[in-house]
């Protein structure tokens, strides 16, 4: 990562984290800091953000340096987290996917894994990025098309000399009643849909996992996920495990290839566990 970021020091950065100004922005983060708090408006989602990171550096989608992009993406996620910006679950999901790709790259691969890129998560990601970019461009082209109300004006003439009462649409009051019912029903559904979001915090989850490990020093990986929490919950748990692993508080182990993963507290010897 040798490219220098645009001179970010020129832009006063006023984020306050834990009561202190937060100034040490990573230099390779290509998002203007002042844009961070409006980032959810500025980007249409994780794919859009990734495309931005890639395009900003003139990289080829087909050949993205995945580690570099992953780090930039994670950096962004973690700053957003520190600034306590509410991040949509999709951003966390993408973080998990990138982390998975990264781990695959770092792990020695078996011969059969090299065959075909059907299941290669990197190939899947690249395909999705390509497809998204294609639609993004198509949407821009659609916006450029001449359209009614903006570019197209119909040529109208006066027809009042035509001596026929133009029939007006016939409406039955029953139709109005039905229309209002439809509105009410929809309004009702809308209010049901405003579900108060369970705050899913990675930090909180890290604490919870450590507490679980206090009671039981080794846990099956899958026990750490509560599927009722949905995809976002799974992602948060996954990120929490990665964070703990990065901080070397836990380690992820596997007794033999393809067996179930376990997680255990680091710095404890086998003897202690036994």
């Amino acid at each position, binding site marked *: 990562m040798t490219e220098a970021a645009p001179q970010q020091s020129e832009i006063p950065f006023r984020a306050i984290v834990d009561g202190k100004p937060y100034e040490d922005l990573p230099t390779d983060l290509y998002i203007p800091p002042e844009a961070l708090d409006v980032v959810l408006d500025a980007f249409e989602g994780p794919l859009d953000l990734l495309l931005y990171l890639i395009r900003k550096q003139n990289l080829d989608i087909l050949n993205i340096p995945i580690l570099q992009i992953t780090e930039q993406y994670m950096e962004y996620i973690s700053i957003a987290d520190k600034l306590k910006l509410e991040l949509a679950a999709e951003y966390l999901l993408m973080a998990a996917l990138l982390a998975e790709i990264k781990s695959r790259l770092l792990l020695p691969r078996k011969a059969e894994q090299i065959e075909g890129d059907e299941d290669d998560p990197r190939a899947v990601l690249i395909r999705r990025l390509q497809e998204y970019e294609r639609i993004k461009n198509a949407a821009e082209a659609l916006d450029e098309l001449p359209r009614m109300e903006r570019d197209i*004006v*119909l*040529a*109208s*003439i*006066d*027809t*009042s*000399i*035509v*001596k*026929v009462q*133009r*029939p*007006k*649409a*016939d*409406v039955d*009051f029953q*139709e*109005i*009643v*039905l*229309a*209002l*019912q*439809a*509105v*009410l*029903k*929809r*309004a*009702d559904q*809308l209010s049901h849909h405003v579900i108060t979001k369970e705050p899913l915090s990675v930090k909180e989850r890290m604490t919870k996992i450590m507490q679980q490990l206090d009671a039981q020093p080794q846990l099956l990986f899958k026990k750490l996920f509560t599927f009722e929490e949905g995809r976002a919950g799974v992602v948060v748990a996954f990120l929490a495990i990665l964070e703990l692993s990065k901080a070397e508080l836990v380690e992820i182990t596997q007794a033999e290839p393809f067996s179930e993963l376990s997680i255990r507290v680091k710095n404890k010897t086998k003897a202690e566990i036994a």
Partner: protein
Amino acid sequence: MSDNQQDQKELKRIIEALLFASDSPMSLQQLQTVFPELEAPSKQTIQEAIDAICGDYQNSAIELHQVASGWRFQVKQELASWVARLFTHKPPKYSRALLETLAIIAYQQPVTRGDIEEIRGVSVSTYMIDTLLDREWIKVAGHKESPGRPSLYVTTKQFLDYFNLASLEEMPALQELEALAIAGEMEI
């Protein structure tokens, strides 16, 4: 072609476009104000353009005609009977969106366009409001004392007449409607 002729030809096209685009007749004065102040052609020049356009449409199905408030394109008299056939063959149908808008105005009046949008959860087109105003089923009863002073819409006497209602009280009560809506949902 001289520059002057070129300009005159371009001006004619612009005037022609304006007369076609406008919903109501346009006077020389109104046509003049469309141009930037310093570049506005004289009324005489505009009149010359109009005369030229009249000539162009001599063999066409429409003509440029002068009425009290200005100039407008209209269908030629001898073709009016065909246009009449068109109209009797195409009774319009109102969209669901328009009926919903009307229902909200009827039940929640007076309401602003913003109120309707909030209840319907989607934006309300000007066309829809215009159609209802045109039909004289709704009218502007005043303006809300809020930023932008939006129009407050209410239903009219013509609305009651059309739907054969003596007063707004004769409309089914909102609670009944809600009960019906819920019953409808339970069936599903």
